């Protein structure tokens, strides 16, 4: 079981496992960054990666806010980002390694170190699980996220993703 609940003093963030009642906020955060509302996808992702199963990590970054309301200070907690990853072994022949395949930060909280704290935490989880490499995959037009991973020290991997448009394949007939 991989239970995570870590308070990061410097940023005031708590990094912990996602819970069922976080899903609405996760869906909202994803929609604010991707522009697409996809609740079914996130429910399925939570089912697969939020179950505290070894090697699977669905983590959220929670910030403690203090809001003045009716001359009183009210404290509330808000999720400002999430990260998902897992350990995959022997995929395309590669040694077991950590994969980060989702990273989202509240647009209003960017440049506050949220992504860095989440990334460091999941890397620590991978390290404790005994793997030495962390991988991710990003659209090359997504310069903001790529620059973030680069700033964390990630370099091009020896694998190159390839794709095929099936409609091109249909138009070309038999490619062989």
């Amino acid at each position, binding site marked *: 079981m991989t239970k995570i609940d870590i308070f990061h003093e410097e940023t005031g963030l708590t990094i912990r496992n996602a819970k069922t009642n976080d899903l609405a906020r996760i869906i909202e955060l994803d929609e604010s960054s991707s522009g697409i509302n996809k609740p079914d996808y996130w429910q399925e992702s939570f089912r697969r990666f939020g179950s505290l199963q070894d090697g699977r990590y669905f983590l959220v970054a929670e910030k403690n806010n203090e809001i003045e309301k009716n001359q009183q200070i009210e404290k509330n907690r808000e999720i400002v980002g999430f990260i998902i990853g897992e350990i995959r072994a022997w995929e395309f022949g590669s040694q077991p390694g950590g994969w980060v395949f989702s990273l989202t930060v509240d647009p209003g909280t960017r440049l506050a170190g949220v992504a860095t704290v989440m990334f460091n935490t999941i890397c620590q989880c991978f390290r404790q699980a005994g793997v030495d490499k962390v991988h991710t995959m990003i659209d090359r037009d997504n310069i903001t996220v790529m*620059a973030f991973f680069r700033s964390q020290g990630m370099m091009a991997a020896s694998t190159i993703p390839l794709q095929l448009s099936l409609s091109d394949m249909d138009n070309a007939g038999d490619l062989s």
Partner: protein
Amino acid sequence: MKLQRSSRLALYSVLELASRPDEQLSAADIAAKFDVSLNHLAKVLRDLGRARLVEAVRGAGGGYRFCGNARRTTLKDVVEIFEPITLHDVGGFEPGDKTEFGTSLAVVLGEIDDIALATLDSITLETMLKLTNRLHKQPKG
């Protein structure tokens, strides 16, 4: 991929200056470190000055200092001052380019260019400085 000498010298200069933000370095010091002519370096520093990445500080102890934003300035930003990076579709057609093989080759070369462009565009000066520190801390095997 090979960058023009001016682009490489510009990258070396901004990285050297950005790595020492509280200091002013003379053009002679930079030229000596990278083993280039002072004349060539002066032209590069002038272009970097126009792009507001470096500024000259006059007077005793003067020199050049980095005045850009190392967290925001990418390798692409610096290289583009000196040469075009989008290599395909630039410079007109070469013999054979319009044939079926020429158009297929253009697709493959374009793929290489797109990857190179994304790489240069995603690496900031600050990331380069971190990479440099990391590589130099690693024990030599």
